[in-house]
């Protein structure tokens, strides 16, 4: 039995040796699919792991923070008295934002490593004593993560120049866990650099429940103990983003599987004769099935193993970009060093096995159940093709009906992506029927005398089975490309417009110690200052999520132009009027509407220091990129209801747009206690915001491009399969006097017709995809809305790209054909 199995295996596998190209495509399909899926899986996993360790510094996790209630920083003496009271798990942190000479913002984090509760069991294995010694001693060291160092073009020993002329300590390029994109330095170095003598906050490491109340009683009134819920918050806030990424990776996996289907279809075709011979030679169906199962297992192992290796590389490339985005959007620190987890390998193997079983084993099993093969192979294939087209069309209708049922029930990202999946696959499975319909339509339009055209259409019927899966893959890739493209363009235009209104001030100033009275004194400032907006705020929790409560000047220029998405009065202007005059009204961001389900004019309750207070929500404003709930209240209202609010800076509008006015403004800010670096100009803010925006979509663009490449490979694989299958036929054509250009025309035309139909279908399908992404998924995932901006131009551009891909593929196919033709002709001669 065993010997028989080996013998059968040899026969079954001989196909792959004979058809190297198809073996390669099978591998490419598997590896690309698994690679893209596992790459995203790995970075998602990495990000989630990082959230679990949110706010851990050099391996110490914050369970609480001690912050100043008044936004004045924490004094060293207060910290020392807590340490001397025995709270060894408390250590100080200085956090600051500085700008490079080019205006790039840099986060600095500093601590006292000797005060960390883990007794210097910190750092990585490659940290040497010399590294630590230099870290704590003048001139100190700035530990810059590798990725950031590359961006800033920093080498070890370089001292990064800041916009205000200061320099960071000499750089040491080092990645530490949870450092993310922050530059780490000693507290002493940060005090020197930032010219300060106080901490931003204190971190409380692991603390027993009994000690918390003891600590609370010890804290002076000006300080508060805040529990770290950041890892929980981050998990919740970023969940949708990760679902989006997972969905894209599953799409890539599906496109990869199409290549596998194609290769498998080819192997099925070619091995019919082998299987028949084997059966005739007395090999039992079960033995043959065992051999095919072993084949499936082997391919799945190779595909998963190599796919994971590719996935790790993809993860390595995509992770820094995602890390930077998560840092800017959610303030989350994500390690740029990949952490390998074994379960990813098993999952990858699992889905590969499942996919292969579906693509390879099941059809073979079906085939083997037939006791004999039909004598007329061609008619049987044609019958099979028609039947499977019908099955696909029926399944497609079922998917579309399901999607119609699901549509009104979408309330989270997962159900949204399920809907998208149903629509995409529904459309893809309908495609073969549409292609057949097109051929039928064309043949109906062609008169009997147009022989060449009829031949072209006839060849289209021959090519259809082979190109079917490749066209479906191409349709999916084009639809995703157009759909996501429209989403990004719509978002970009909404975001840019919104930025222009929201960031209309010329200067944004934020510093902990500013003499506002002096700065905004009308007597002194009238020369340069046209208007100003002082804002205050506090972070609270509302409906289990972080909520920002802002006290704003309702008459400031940016408040008067606040872009509202929904309003309760007749117009947005009249709604803003009500907000200015009527007590206990507030404006909330769209996230409050979409994520918390609050409607216009609904009354919500906010916890204030005076007890709970009811507010009527009279409008929702656009608040792109904000993962938190946000409420705008009049300045005085916040002052009267809350004690622990913090200044949130001041926006300044200048009298004139000239250098002298700007210099006057800068001098006035310095006189009021601000230092260079405390303020940022409008154009810098906008540039920064747009940078963050673009970076956020880098990963989307990368996934899109990779999916397109996979689809192009699917097309190439199909074409080469056609050549291989039809080589004897082509040889006959040549023998009958058909020239090679004519032959290429006959092959190319049906392909171009198919691609054109797929492209035509991708345009409305892409628009539908983006409509659902914008109006459903974006709202349920992130809680903000925007108008959809559709344009035909990207579709035309995509059409051009696809034409190029088809042309390149045809050229390659033509080259293959020329190479093989002499041999095929010779064989034809032998047969004759």
């Amino acid at each position: 039995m065993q010997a028989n199995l080996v013998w059968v295996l040899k026969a079954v596998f001989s196909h792959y040796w004979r058809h190297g190209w198809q073996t390669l495509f099978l591998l490419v399909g598997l590896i690309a699919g698994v690679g893209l899926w596992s790459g995203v899986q790995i970075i998602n996993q990495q990000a989630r792991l990082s959230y679990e360790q949110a706010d851990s510094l050099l391996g110490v996790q914050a369970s609480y923070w001690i912050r100043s209630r008044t936004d004045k920083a924490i004094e060293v003496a207060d910290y020392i008295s807590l340490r001397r009271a025995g709270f060894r798990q408390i250590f100080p942190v200085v956090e600051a934002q500085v700008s490079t000479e080019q205006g790039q913002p840099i986060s600095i984090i500093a601590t006292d490593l000797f005060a960390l509760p883990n007794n210097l069991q910190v750092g990585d294995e490659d940290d040497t004593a010399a590294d630590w010694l230099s870290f704590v001693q003048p001139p100190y060291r700035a530990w810059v993560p590798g990725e950031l160092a590359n961006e800033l073009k920093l080498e070890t020993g370089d001292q990064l120049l800041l916009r205000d002329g200061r320099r960071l300590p000499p750089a040491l390029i080092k990645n530490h866990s949870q450092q993310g994109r922050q530059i780490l330095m000693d507290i002493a170095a940060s005090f020197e650099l930032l010219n300060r003598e106080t901490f931003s906050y204190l971190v409380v490491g692991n603390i027993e429940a009994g000690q918390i109340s003891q600590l609370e009683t010890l804290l002076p009134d000006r300080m508060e103990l805040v529990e770290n819920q950041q890892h929980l918050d981050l998990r919740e806030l970023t969940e949708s983003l990760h679902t989006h990424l997972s969905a894209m990776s599953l799409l890539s996996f599906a496109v990869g599987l199409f290549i596998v289907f194609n290769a498998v279809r080819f192997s099925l075709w070619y091995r019919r004769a082998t299987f028949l011979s084997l059966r005739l030679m007395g090999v039992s169906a079960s033995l043959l099935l065992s051999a095919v199962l072993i084949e499936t297992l082997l391919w799945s192992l190779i595909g998963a193993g190599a796919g994971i290796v590719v996935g790790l590389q993809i993860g390595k490339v995509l992770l820094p970009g995602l890390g930077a985005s998560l840092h800017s959007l959610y303030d989350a620190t994500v390690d740029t060093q990949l952490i390998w987890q074994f379960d990813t390998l098993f999952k990858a193997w699992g889905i590969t096995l499942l996919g292969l079983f579906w693509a390879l084993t099941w059809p073979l099993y079906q085939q083997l159940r037939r006791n004999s093969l039909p004598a007329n192979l061609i008619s049987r294939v044609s019958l099979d093709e028609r039947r499977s087209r019908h099955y696909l069309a029926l399944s497609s209708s079922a998917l579309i009906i399901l999607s119609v049922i699901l549509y009104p029930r979408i309330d989270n990202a997962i159900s949204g992506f399920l809907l998208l999946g149903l629509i995409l696959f529904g459309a893809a499975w309908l495609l073969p029927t549409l292609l057949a319909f097109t051929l039928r339509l064309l043949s109906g339009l062609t008169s009997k005398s147009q022989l060449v055209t009829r031949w072209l259409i006839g060849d289209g019927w021959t090519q259809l089975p082979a190109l079917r899966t490749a066209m479906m893959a191409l349709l999916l890739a084009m639809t995703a490309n157009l759909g996501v493209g429209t989403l990004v363009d719509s978002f970009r235009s909404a975001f840019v417009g919104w930025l222009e209104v929201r960031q209309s001030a010329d200067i944004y100033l934020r510093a902990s110690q500013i003499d506002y009275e002096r700065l905004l004194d009308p007597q002194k400032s009238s020369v340069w200052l046209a208007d100003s907006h002082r804002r205050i705020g506090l972070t609270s929790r509302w409906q289990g999520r972080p909520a920002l409560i802002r006290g704003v000047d309702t008459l400031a220029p940016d408040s008067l132009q606040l872009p509202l998405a929904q309003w309760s009065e007749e117009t947005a202007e009249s709604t803003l009027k009500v907000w200015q005059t009527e007590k206990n009204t507030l404006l909330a961001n769209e996230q409050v509407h979409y994520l918390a389900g609050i409607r216009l004019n609904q009354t919500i309750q906010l916890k204030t220091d005076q007890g709970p207070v009811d507010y009527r929500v009279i409008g929702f404003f656009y608040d792109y990129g904000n993962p938190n709930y946000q409420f705008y209240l009049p300045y005085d209202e916040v002052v009267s209801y809350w004690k622990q609010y913090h200044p949130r800076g001041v926006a300044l509008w200048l009298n004139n747009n000239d250098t002298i006015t700007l210099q006057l403004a800068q001098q006035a800010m310095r006189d009021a206690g601000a230092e260079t670096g405390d303020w940022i100009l409008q154009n810098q803010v906008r540039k920064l915001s747009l940078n963050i925006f673009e970076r956020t979509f880098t990963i989307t663009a990368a996934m899109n491009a990779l999916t397109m490449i996979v689809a192009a490979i699917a097309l190439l694989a199909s074409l080469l399969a056609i050549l291989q299958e039809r080589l004897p036929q082509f040889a006959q054509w040549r023998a009958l006097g058909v020239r090679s250009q004519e032959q290429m025309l006959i092959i190319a035309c049906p392909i171009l017709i198919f691609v054109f139909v797929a492209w035509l279908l991708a345009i409305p399908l892409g628009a539908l995809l983006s409509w659902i992404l914008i109006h459903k998924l974006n709202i349920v995932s992130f809680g903000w809305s925007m108008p959809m901006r559709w344009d035909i131009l990207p579709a035309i551009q995509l059409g051009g790209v696809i034409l190029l891909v088809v042309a390149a593929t045809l050229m390659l196919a033509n080259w293959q054909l020329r190479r093989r033709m002499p041999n095929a002709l010779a064989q034809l001669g032998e047969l004759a």
Partner: protein
Amino acid sequence: MRVLFIFFYLLSPAAISADNFEILRNDVEGFAKVAPGKHFDFPADHGPHSDYRIEWWYLTANLKDQQGRHWGIQWTLFRNALSAEPAKQGWSNNQLWMAHAAITTPRGHQFEERFARGGIGQAGVNLEPQFEAWIDDWIWQSETKSLFPAQLKFRIADREIDMQLSSEASWVLHGDAGYSQKSEQGQASYYYSQPEIQIAGTINGQPLSGRAWLDREWSSQPLAENQLGWDWFSLHLNDGNKLMLYRLRHKQGKHWLSGSWVDADGNTRHLHSEAIQLSEKDFRQIKTSDNDEIILPLGWQINLPELNRQLIVKPLYDQQWMATSFPYWEGVVLVDDENGVRVGEGYMELTGYQSP
């Protein structure tokens, strides 16, 4: 002679390389040098000598509870200057503090290690307005500028140690009037002790009392290159005599031995290398972590021919390992005479048997 090497390993959570050693060795330049003929000035010399590189305040105590069971405590504050510049106040201070504390109870041994930078009030030694040595909430606080009478308070895990220290005895200057030579190449330290301290107090409310020993030592020079580690003893004998002796182990050749014999009246006799015969009698295997073990010489024989004394030293129990950044064995030992009669107790320290 105590954990002189300790700071060399301090800043290296990972394995220390030869290069790092070199950096530390070069840094010795610029520090004050130890030379013979120093006049000790008390209480001023109880305070820190920040122009020297390394210094410690090292207290060990043998205690008994009401049932007569043996207990022990170790409380040590180390100072290390990271550079030779004068110490500044504030965060740019170059002094680094480390503390080790351990208790040996009838049920087992517990220890803890702490670090702090100087200049910010988190750790240090003050003489004004009275003597105070502390790191976080571990504190030795005297009522005067001298070291006694004082209160010693610290906590290890869930054990709160609160002790009163007192002593009227005169200070013992080791070596040549406090100049303690450590090698033939000239390595040396200033070294004085107070071996006669009465100690009484509580550990988690349980009353205990006994005898304590304080070592004060400072230096700028590391050990000689051929020295691997040391074996150190401080013993209280029941007849009122006290013995301090140490052996610096050399890679090759004769080890460096030195000691002091203090009689009941407080007279000190310096013991030269030739006056001491020290030999390992018993090797034991102990756990250094959950996964590692080490074999250490925990039983010793000390012969002092000039004084006609033979002492057998053995641990109260084996497992008194300090798994700190620089790991070593330090714990309560019991002393018998050659006939096996209990004649005293003390502390023993063994270093350099396991690299950090």
